[in-house]
């Protein structure tokens, strides 16, 4: 039955599979080629139906309770691990190999890893939100599987060697008797080529981080060599026999609908195979990609325009007027009274625009849809959910669709990878042949799921000593769609164009009183409040009079998770406001934060960052701030400042503080970030070099988002559609000195580290600008025009 078949398939993968990959550096295609017999079996012999038996065993995003779903040991001793958490440039592939090698006590180079293939890996939902470490590196899933495998092997060896388990030790892919190491038996001879047939054992002991020899070390990424030499296979490079090329024709504005399509406008064009129209979805298929692009360009479509868009300049006011879904996360019930009796009340409003993922490669997918089954090579972060939603679009059962995760360009959240997978599937189904679709730059940028726009009001009540006694947060944000999950393909553009709705929007005002303990996974609550709900107290701070109220309105544009989704926007507002309050009472920003916190790990990160930055204790702004502004604007009117920001990422998934140092040219409004010091605590560190790479990249990506990036639109359409109109910092900009402080916590659980640093960048830079100039910029991005205007209005 199913398990046997799957096990055979896996053994074949293990046996025949991955030597080619080893010799060529990591390459997905090498895997598939090397294990071609198995893949052919899967694809051509109706095996997908049988595989679904395995999928039915609790495969719903939560992994699998079966050890054989995670680990197979081949007759040659090679370990093949299967994971539902994928690599997209963050280094997770190598880190998961380290995890398996460490926990299973085998050499690193004997481990193979297969990620996110709906036919053969466990369903772990989506790889996102820096959840891969919490999910796979603690006491469940892949880590537990490797630990269970080791303990099972020791138990098997105990019988084979006739020695009690406590006298045995697992090492280098073998189990030996501690006292007489010559008495040993290899994993291969214990189980090679056979299945474990055991369940994950929740009591299987993890190897303590203090004893790690593979985890915790800077193992170089196994894919780096193939990437650096142009050999690495991205989804863009997948080629399937008989493959055609598609392009989509998106509407001219967000709500436009198709009136008519004039196919005669492209008749006779070289390479044309078919024009495909389904509801408001339009695509063309051609023999070659350049032909497809030209046909898509030429195709005459008459559109019925949608309603005009509300002007961008009104966006932050407009969202306050829309119907909203309201949520109270925390409400101590006394905020209005405590504010009324406070010695001082401060208030400020912060604005954060829509921003893009802006992947450097436009999204691409290849689909091979046959009469009753389909294969999709997709860079989606959600292989299993994409399988289900693609099946819904095609009219198939989920088990008839196989999604093979194949890497795309860095996505930083839900870029166009999901939607282009649907594009390819629809076009392939229409022509009965494999179709590859790569989006144009404009189609990527005008239609992706943007990071949400936010307007945030903050109010703080202070006592006579300048201590915060009340914190009142009220925010309006705009959203539409998001990740499709397992059943909402309308959450991305292709699904909607096909006539499937995004997740419904149900206004609800006022918000019901909070009943659940605070889950701060969007960092909606500031770190400085107690976060009391009922008897629970999940905040990181001491402010007891507290209210956290959110209004979610419908966005005209698709939105979705963008690296540190909502956490970044909220943290910008929290950390700048905290700085405003500190400045008002003339307190040092570091000391003032510490005074309002009681979370040791966040406080530790703040102290580590401050120490590494040689933070000088004094209030902001710098006493010289603004002095230069007395002069006529000139090239020497540059002033300097420093700022700090911090966060408990998602409440409990990583702790970070950043000190930014900036120069502000007061004549031009240009902000030059000269130094970023990042201290980060993400539990026990799996790979220090990988973590550092994420911190450095996150710091600079955050800087690009803080200084320049904003989605723009006019009354008809999105106008930020390429790299001239959406302003990412190029590689050539003068980068700040970046110093990373890694706080290793071997006795804590593993947290993520991919989104932690970026969350605090806008706050740290905004606070540094204030320190330098005495002017508070409350809207991202801090463009020269905006900074200059703010400086000009300074009195």
């Amino acid at each position, binding site marked *: 039955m199913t398990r046997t078949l799957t096990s055979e398939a896996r053994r074949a993968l293990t046996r025949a599979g991955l030597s080619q990959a080893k010799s*060529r*550096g990591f390459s997905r295609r090498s895997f598939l080629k090397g294990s071609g017999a198995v893949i052919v079996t899967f694809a051509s012999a109706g095996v997908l139906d049988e595989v679904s038996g395995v999928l039915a065993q609790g495969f719903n995003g939560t992994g699998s309770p079966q050890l054989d779903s995670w680990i197979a040991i081949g007759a040659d001793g090679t370990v093949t691990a299967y994971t539902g958490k994928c690599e*997209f*440039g*963050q*280094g997770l592939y190598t880190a998961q190999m380290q995890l398996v090698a460490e926990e299973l006590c085998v050499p690193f180079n004997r481990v193979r890893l297969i990620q996110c293939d709906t036919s053969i890996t466990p369903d772990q939902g989506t790889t996102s939100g820096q959840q891969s470490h919490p999910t796979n590196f603690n006491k469940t899933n892949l880590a537990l599987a490797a630990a269970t495998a080791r303990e099972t092997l020791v138990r098997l060896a105990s019988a084979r060697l006739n020695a009690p388990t406590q006298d045995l030790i697992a090492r280098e892919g073998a189990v030996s008797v501690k006292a007489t190491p010559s008495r040993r038996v290899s994993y291969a001879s214990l189980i090679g080529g056979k299945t474990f047939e055991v369940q994950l054992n929740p009591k299987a002991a993890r190897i303590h981080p203090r004893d790690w020899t593979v985890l915790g070390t800077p193992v*170089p990424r196994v894919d*780096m*060599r*193939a*990437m*650096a*030499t*142009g*050999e*690495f*296979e*991205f989804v*863009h*490079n997948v080629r399937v026999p008989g493959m055609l090329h598609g392009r989509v024709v998106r509407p001219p504005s967000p709500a436009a609908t198709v009136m008519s399509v004039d196919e005669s406008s492209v008749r006779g064009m*070289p390479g044309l195979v078919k024009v495909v129209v389904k509801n408001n979805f339009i695509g063309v298929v051609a023999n*070659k*990609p*350049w*032909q497809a*692009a030209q046909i898509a360009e030429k195709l005459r479509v008459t559109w019925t325009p949608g309603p005009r868009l509300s002007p961008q300049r009104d966006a932050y006011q407009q969202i306050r007027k829309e119907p909203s879904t309201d949520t109270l996360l925390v409400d101590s019930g006394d905020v209005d009274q405590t504010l009324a009796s406070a010695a001082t009340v401060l208030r400020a409003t912060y604005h954060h625009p829509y921003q893009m993922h*802006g*992947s*450097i*490669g*436009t999204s691409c997918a290849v689909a091979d849809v046959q009469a009753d089954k389909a294969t999709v090579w997709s860079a989606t972060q959600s292989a299993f959910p994409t399988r289900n939603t693609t099946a819904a679009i095609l009219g198939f059962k989920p088990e008839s669709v196989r999604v093979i995760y194949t*890497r*795309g*360009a*860095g996505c930083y959240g839900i870029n166009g990878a999901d939607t282009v997978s649907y594009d390819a599937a629809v076009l392939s189904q229409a022509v009965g042949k494999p179709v590859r679709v*790569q989006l*144009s*730059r404009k189609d990527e940028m005008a239609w992706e799921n943007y990071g949400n726009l936010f307007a945030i009001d903050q109010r703080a009540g202070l006592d006579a000593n300048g201590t915060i006694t009340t914190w009142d947060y009220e925010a309006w944000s705009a959203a539409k769609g998001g990740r499709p999950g397992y059943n909402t393909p309308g959450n991305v553009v292709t699904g909607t164009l096909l006539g499937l709705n995004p997740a419904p929007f149900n206004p609800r005002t006022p918000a019901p009183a909070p009943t659940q303990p605070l889950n701060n996974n969007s960092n909606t609550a500031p770190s400085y409040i107690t976060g009391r709900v009922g008897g629970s107290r999940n905040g990181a701070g001491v402010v007891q009079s507290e209210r956290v109220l959110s209004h979610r309105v419908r966005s005209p544009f698709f939105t979705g998770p963008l690296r540190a989704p909502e956490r970044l926007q909220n943290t910008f507002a929290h950390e700048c406001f905290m700085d405003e309050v500190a400045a008002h009472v003339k307190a040092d920003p570091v000391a003032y934060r510490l005074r309002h916190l009681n979370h040791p790990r966040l406080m530790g990160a703040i102290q580590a960052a401050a120490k590494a930055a040689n933070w000088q204790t004094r209030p902001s702004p710098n006493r010289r701030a603004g002095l230069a502004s007395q002069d006529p604007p000139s090239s020497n009117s540059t002033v300097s400042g420093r700022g700090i920001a911090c966060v408990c990422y998602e409440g409990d998934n990583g702790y970070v503080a950043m000190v930014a140092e900036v120069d502000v040219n007061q004549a031009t409004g240009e902000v030059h970030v000269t130094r970023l010091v990042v201290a980060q605590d993400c539990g026990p560190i799996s790979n220090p*070099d990988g973590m550092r*790479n*994420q911190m*450095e*990249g*996150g*710091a*600079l*990506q955050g800087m*690009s988002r803080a200084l320049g990036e904003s989605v723009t639109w006019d009354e008809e359409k999105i106008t930020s559609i*390429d*790299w*001239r109109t959406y302003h*990412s*910092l*190029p*590689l*050539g*900009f*003068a*980068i700040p000195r*970046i110093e990373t402080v890694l706080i290793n916590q071997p006795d804590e659980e593993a947290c993520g580290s991919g989104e932690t640093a970026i969350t605090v960048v806008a706050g740290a830079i905004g606070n540094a600008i204030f320190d330098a100039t005495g002017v508070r910029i409350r809207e991202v991005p801090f463009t020269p025009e905006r900074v200059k205007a703010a400086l000009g209005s300074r009195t």
Partner: protein
Amino acid sequence: MATLTLKVNGRTRSVDVDPATPLLYVLSDDLELRGPKFGCGLGQCGSCTVIANGQAIRSCITPVSMVTSAEITTLEGLGTPEKPHPIQQAFIDEQAAQCGFCLSGVMLTAKTFFDKNPRATDEQIQQALSGVLCRCFGNVRMLRAIRRYAKGPAV
């Protein structure tokens, strides 16, 4: 359509294409090379960079008919996983990538610049890369790798 002959990575290749086709499409579709990538199709990001007669060019906006007499080198033409070119080795040593999609633009732009300006300063390197994008922002490591390459192999 026309039959054109190209010299790519030291080999002569014949392709039957529309002469107006951008070089990138020919390289990645007809010749199935993986180094140059479609990033924007507008010459704005650098992902499609190849070397043609010693110059780093943007293959996404270069008609293939313009380079039929050129010696074209793509990222995979520089070196192999077993024997990387020194600039590739420098990037491997510095672990100077995240997703790796931009590497043709970064490495080939830096290499052609250094081949002509062996004594370039950090500022000049940055200037040379001012039209290249890396959305993972691997700047710190990439600049370190480029400096390592510029210094030549350690003695």
